[in-house]
């Protein structure tokens, strides 16, 4: 080797080493940036996938799972505003804390024995069980349909991790494509569920039995926890994908005929035979790359690749559900559509009250009398807690009590008079109930009387105005006392002790 050749080799070697060093430094410097980019690409793909599910009024599940079914109850701890913002940003919601799975035996009744529903078989059990030929019976399940989903992707974005269809990165590799666009058809789609009426009853019954657990999630700072209840799920058994190579449609695309995928075994002639061989070969390669041989390529060229991917068993892609707010004392509120909540749609606020105020008060009276008649230590403890609530009574009456003596004639009470000392303080919880009773009677009487009260003379007008003020004071007192009372632990414990424990 002469000196000239040696110098040339040394220069070339140094150049390669310099380039490698520079590349290493670049990788180190841009590592964080690439990771961030990958995360953002992953989120985008997840969101795109979720949007097509959402467009069908279904809440997307991501990643896809087999293990979600009607009767699943999730505990949602973050406020609904945050949930809605997250849903808007990501396109899907994490499945939160799986609180309980409730099994209903009403499927056969709901489907009127159709779709292979049987006694004592809770779906999807009857469709998941292989028949004599070893095949699943999913075809018997109610079918559904989803629109075609269009997407665009680039390689190097960690696509195979985010996209729920494994064949896509293989297809991109076959086309030698850096970027591509395509369509996904969600095929073999099934759905099953139950009506809200039955599921809500089931959840409410569970809620009563587990009041002590739910009580821990009572509202605080005007914010509610929710139970998110799944009452319908959508599943897919197969997806059909067509991917077009965006690079061949750009400026670098060759004119003329489409090129087949380059494989070593392709011969120079026999186009049809070649094509079949190539497709078979690709399917063999795919079955090696994706265990289970579930990806089947139908068309493969440098411009486009079509394949279908069959899941071993259908996977849940989305669900329909409703939210039930957990109220004071662990009671459950009325069901509200989850989708409406997440989309921020204006919905009519359901009536969350469960009883007329006057019936509630009489129930409390009977509950108090029941506790007084019991000798157990638990009851005595609950009774002491209730009696301690006499501390909530004001020192003087904030309004005067009224009732009807005859239709159209109101009479003022002689003892319960505004400004007088509250007598009920010494009567413990009985005094609290009496105070509320007078307040309720006054509110009912004056609300009924005032719209038709005489207002002809100045004296009548003044008397009516005075009664109006009394009504306002009575309403305010009733509201304040009720709010304090029905949120108090002592009352909730007593209610549970008398009404709930009796059934256990």
């Amino acid at each position: 080797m002469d000196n000239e050749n040696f110098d040339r080799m040394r220069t070339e070697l140094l150049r390669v080493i310099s380039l490698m060093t520079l590349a290493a430094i670049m990788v180190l410097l841009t590592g964080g940036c690439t990771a961030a980019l990958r995360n953002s690409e992953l989120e985008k793909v997840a969101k795109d996938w979720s949007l097509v599910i959402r467009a069908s009024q279904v809440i997307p599940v991501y990643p896809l799972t087999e293990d979600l079914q009607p009767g699943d109850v999730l505990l949602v701890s973050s406020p609904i505003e945050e949930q809605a913002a997250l849903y808007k940003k990501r396109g899907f919601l994490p499945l939160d804390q799986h609180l309980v799975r409730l099994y209903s035996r009403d499927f056969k009744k709901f489907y009127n024995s159709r779709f292979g529903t049987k006694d004592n078989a809770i779906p999807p059990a009857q469709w998941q069980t292989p028949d004599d030929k070893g095949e699943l019976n999913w075809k018997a399940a109610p079918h559904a349909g989803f629109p075609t989903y269009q997407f665009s992707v680039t390689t190097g974005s960690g696509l195979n991790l985010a996209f729920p269809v494994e064949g896509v990165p293989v297809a991109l590799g076959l086309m030698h494509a850096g970027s591509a666009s395509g369509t996904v058809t969600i095929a073999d789609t099934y759905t099953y569920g139950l009506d809200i009426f039955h599921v809500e009853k089931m959840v409410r019954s569970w809620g009563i039995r587990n009041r002590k657990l739910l009580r821990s999630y009572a509202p605080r700072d005007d914010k509610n926890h929710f139970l998110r209840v799944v009452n319908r799920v959508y599943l897919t058994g197969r997806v059909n994908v067509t991917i077009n190579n965006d690079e061949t449609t750009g400026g670098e695309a060759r004119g003329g005929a489409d090129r087949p995928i380059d494989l070593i075994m392709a011969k120079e002639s026999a186009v049809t035979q070649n094509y079949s061989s190539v497709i078979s070969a690709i399917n063999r390669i795919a079955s090696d790359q994706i265990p289970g041989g579930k990806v089947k390529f139908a068309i493969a060229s440098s411009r486009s690749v079509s394949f279908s991917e069959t899941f071993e068993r259908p996977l849940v892609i989305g669900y329909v559900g409703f939210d039930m707010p957990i109220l004071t004392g662990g009671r459950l509120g009325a069901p509200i559509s989850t989708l409406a909540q997440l989309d921020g749609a204006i919905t009519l606020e359901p009536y969350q009250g469960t009883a007329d105020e006057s019936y509630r008060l009489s129930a409390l009276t009977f509950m108090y009398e029941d506790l007084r008649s019991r000798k157990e230590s638990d009851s005595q403890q609950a009774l002491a807690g209730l009696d301690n609530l006499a501390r909530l009574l004001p020192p003087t009456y904030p309004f005067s009590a009224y009732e009807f003596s005859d239709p159209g004639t109101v009479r003022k009470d002689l003892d319960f008079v505004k400004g007088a000392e509250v007598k009920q303080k010494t009567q413990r919880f009985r005094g609290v109930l009496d105070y509320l009773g007078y307040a309720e009677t006054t509110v009912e009487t004056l609300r009924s009387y005032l719209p038709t009260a005489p207002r002809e003379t100045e004296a009548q007008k003044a008397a009516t105005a005075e009664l109006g003020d009394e009504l306002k004071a009575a309403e305010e007192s009733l509201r304040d006392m009720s709010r304090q009372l029905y949120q108090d632990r002592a009352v909730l414990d007593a209610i549970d002790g008398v009404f709930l424990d009796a059934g256990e």
Partner: protein
Amino acid sequence: MPQEENKAFIKDKSADMSTTDRTLQLSATLAKAPNVNRNISRIERVIEGTPGWNIFYWSGSN
């Protein structure tokens, strides 16, 4: 103070209440103040005019 019979009137919540609802309303009213503490002598159903219940009770002491 000699005892005398007084009367309180309970108006029906609505005109088309069923018998069960009317009875429930009466029970709830009797279970709370001021009626719960009264010495009730008799209860009458009012049909004519404004429908409801007349509750007669003794006040004062012998």
